[in-house]
């Protein structure tokens, strides 16, 4: 048994050495799958855990998990398709080899083991080639909260998934090889593969028609080639849609809810264990007077006051730790949005005073983090301020919303906020300027702040915030484009294998065609049409399914807490680039076809049958 097994191992290694194209292509597919899986699993895990870039702590949603799972499955499916296709074509090309092995005494099981062991060898060689760069890429993409051991575990999982996928993808090709009879080792016509149905001839036999007949003769092989190419294309479309749909400018917009261009805000660089938010707020620099002065600057159209309080929820600290939550104000700008997000109860008017009424955001990260269970009608005791400014207030929960983008637990009417605080609860003033006067307004605000010597405030512009997000996104975008570049390469390798195999596998048949009078130009035209049909078919499938999935995935991802700035955009540029590369590859393959056809003469080609 041992000597038979080692013979199979040696033969498998020799086969891989002999079939260089298959080895390189299948190996590259396996490495690419391992790389993609590692990147997706590590990055996805850490993003969902809340270690991502420049975002409020995102919350894990079922949609987000589903989206990650979908991406992992798509990668595995594309890998399965590609490896299956490569090995299936390889077995189909070597029917006589396997037939001869059977004729010489190899049993079904040994042939099966031979094919499977080739897959094992490829996995052993190429999975590490994908896992290592995947691990490093994941590390680059996650800026904070990286845990090397967890990432290593995820990489090991990715390796296991890839190996398992390769093993599964070889089942059918291995069975196919095992079923080849000894007689087929001697016979050379692949009659077993050709279509058996009668067909009425109605059209002329042009190179186009010959190409069509060739593809329709082996429907199973054609369908699998199409699907394999298409799924890689789907994967590309999905990732391209995700990448194109992330808009850093939208992310910055969240900091300027009124649509303003500037924000005069409390300087968070001044926070320290000794100096809290309320300490800065109580200095009162964001006063009504400042509001009026800002409004009086030429070119300023509006000034919006954003209020924010930190409060301790009294009587909720089951763990002994204080439950500190945020309260933001309801303004005329966010009122409309709150109405849409309302689940139950009412939204207090932003000008309502009287007994404190709150709106609770049950989808906020604070709600989830503290494991709170509050409902409309509940009364809560809020402890605001610190030191001598501390005060307690009872408030009632009047309404409930679900806003995954916001980490703040409560909202209250603007008029209610000062009563809750006991001091000026303003956190920032957003300034909206006339379009043509932005620059001047910015300079005037800076001048005003310099004149007043405002120690607790800083000026931030929308452009600065958008630019900082663009910088942050750049690293993600680069990694993202590297990822879709890998996916595209994955898909193109598969295409290359299918096209090359189509020529190599039919060397003999092409020889017959030349022998009976088909010119090189006609042969090349026929092969070109075949290639174009495969590409067109798979592109149509990939385009339609890829777009649908891309749309669904971006919608799902945008519902993950903190990622609402992801809004579906058609990845036109990526598709055009991908199409251009496919056209280049097609051109290269056509040249290769012409070269291959001219390299061998007809007699040599016909001898391939013997």
């Amino acid at each position, binding site marked *: 048994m041992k000597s038979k097994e080692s013979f199979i191992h040696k033969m498998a290694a020799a086969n891989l050495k002999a079939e260089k194209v298959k080895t390189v292509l299948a190996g590259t597919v396996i490495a690419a799958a391992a790389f993609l899986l590692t990147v997706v699993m590590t990055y996805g895990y850490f993003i969902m855990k809340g270690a991502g870039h420049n975002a409020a702590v995102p919350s894990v949603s079922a949609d987000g998990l589903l989206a990650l799972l979908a991406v992992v499955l798509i990668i595995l499916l594309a890998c399965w398709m590609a490896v299956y296709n490569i090995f299936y074509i390889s077995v189909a090309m070597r029917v006589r080899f396997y037939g001869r092995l059977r004729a010489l005494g190899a049993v079904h099981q040994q042939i099966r083991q031979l094919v499977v062991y080739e897959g094992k060898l490829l996995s052993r060689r190429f999975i590490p080639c994908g896992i290592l760069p995947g691990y490093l890429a994941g590390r680059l993409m996650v800026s904070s909260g990286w845990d090397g051991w967890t990432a290593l575990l995820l990489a090991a999982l990715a390796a296991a998934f890839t190996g398992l996928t390769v093993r599964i993808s070889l089942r059918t090709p291995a069975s196919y090889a095992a079923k080849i009879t000894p007689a087929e080792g001697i016979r050379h016509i692949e009659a077993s593969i050709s279509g058996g149905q*009668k067909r009425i001839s109605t059209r002329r036999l042009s190179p186009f028609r010959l190409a069509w007949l060739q593809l329709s003769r082996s429907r199973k092989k054609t369908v699998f080639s199409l699907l394999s190419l298409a799924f890689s294309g789907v994967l590309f479309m999905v990732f391209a849609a995700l990448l194109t749909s992330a808009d850093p400018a939208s992310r910055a917009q969240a900091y300027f809810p009124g649509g303003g261009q500037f924000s005069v805000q409390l300087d968070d660089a001044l926070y320290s264990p000794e100096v809290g938010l309320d300490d800065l707020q109580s200095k009162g620099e964001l006063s009504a007077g400042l509001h009026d002065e800002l409004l009086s600057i030429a070119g300023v159209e509006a000034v919006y006051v954003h209020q924010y309080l930190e409060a301790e929820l009294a009587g909720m600290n089951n763990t002994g730790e204080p439950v500190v939550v945020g309260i933001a104000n309801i303004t005329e700008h966010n009122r409309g949005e709150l109405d849409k997000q309302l689940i139950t109860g009412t939204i207090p008017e932003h000008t309502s005073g009287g007994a404190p009424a709150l709106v609770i955001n049950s989808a906020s990260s604070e709600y989830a983090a503290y494991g709170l269970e509050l409902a409309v009608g509940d009364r809560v005791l809020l402890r605001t301020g610190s030191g001598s400014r501390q005060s307690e207030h009872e408030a009632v929960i009047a309404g409930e919303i679900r806003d995954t983008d916001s980490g703040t637990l409560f909202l209250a009417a603007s008029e209610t906020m000062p009563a809750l605080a006991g001091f000026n609860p303003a956190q920032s003033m957003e300034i909206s300027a006339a379009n043509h006067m932005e620059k001047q307004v910015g300079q005037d605000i800076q001048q005003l702040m310099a004149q007043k010597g405002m120690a607790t405030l800083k000026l931030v512009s929308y452009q600065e915030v958008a630019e900082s997000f663009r910088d942050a996104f750049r690293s993600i975008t680069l990694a993202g484009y590297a990822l879709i570049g890998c996916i595209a390469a994955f898909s193109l390798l598969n295409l290359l294998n299918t096209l090359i195999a189509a020529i190599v596998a039919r060397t003999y048949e092409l020889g017959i065609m030349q022998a*009976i009078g088909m010119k090189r130009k006609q042969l090349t035209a026929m092969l070109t049409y075949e290639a174009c049909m495969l590409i067109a078919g798979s592109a149509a499938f990939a385009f339609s399914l890829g777009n649908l999935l891309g749309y669904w995935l971006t919608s799902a991802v945008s519902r993950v807490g903190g990622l609402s700035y992801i809004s579906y955009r058609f990845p036109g540029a990526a598709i055009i680039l991908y199409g251009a590369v496919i056209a280049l590859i097609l051109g290269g393959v056509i040249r290769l076809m012409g070269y291959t056809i001219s390299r061998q003469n007809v007699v040599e080609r016909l001898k391939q049958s013997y």
Partner: protein
Amino acid sequence: MAIVETKQVCKHYGTALNKVRALQDINITVEEGEYVAIVGTSGSGKSTLLNLLGGLDVPSEGQVKVDGCELSRLSEDELTEFRRRKIGFIFQHYNLLPSLNVYENIVLPLELDDKQMERNELEQMLRMLGISGKQEAMTNQLSGGQQQRVAIARALITRPAILLADEPTGNLDSKSSQDVLELLRSCNRKYNQTLIMITHNPEIAAMADRILRIEDGVITADTVNDVVQV
């Protein structure tokens, strides 16, 4: 009229240190309508000679003329067109295209030339070959004998100057072999079709008008009705 002529045809492979002489100084002439059998042991150069006569290969030295046309003067495309129009091949393993049905396999040489054959004419040919009613069948639905008849039909469709058959019965049972040989003989007699056939079988060779014996790349005998000329 000589339909095939070779002058000092040689074919060798490899370099000077390792030269293999497949054919040496082959001078033959085949008249129109002749039925010639080429016999010889394995590796004697029979197939090489047939390939040169059919324009599938080019001689290292010498000339091959078919139907008055010197093949070495033709470009690759011209040679392909010449082969398509003037030469009909019948191979031992039929060499039909599995993606095409019977009708399409037969008419392919015509279609490549942008020509068509009348369906009636084709039907007549198929009846003569004993495969009428099989036009829509795929090749893997036919027996060996039927496939070889389709191959013969394909070779005859363009009314070629010469029919070249490389062991056409090598893959057939005796009954099918007999049928195929009778068909070829019939084409030769009825249409004055020049036929050059390779065979190992002396009985088949004896059916020919002339037997060329080739050994080690050299014509060793040229027998016409048992009269030895070389």
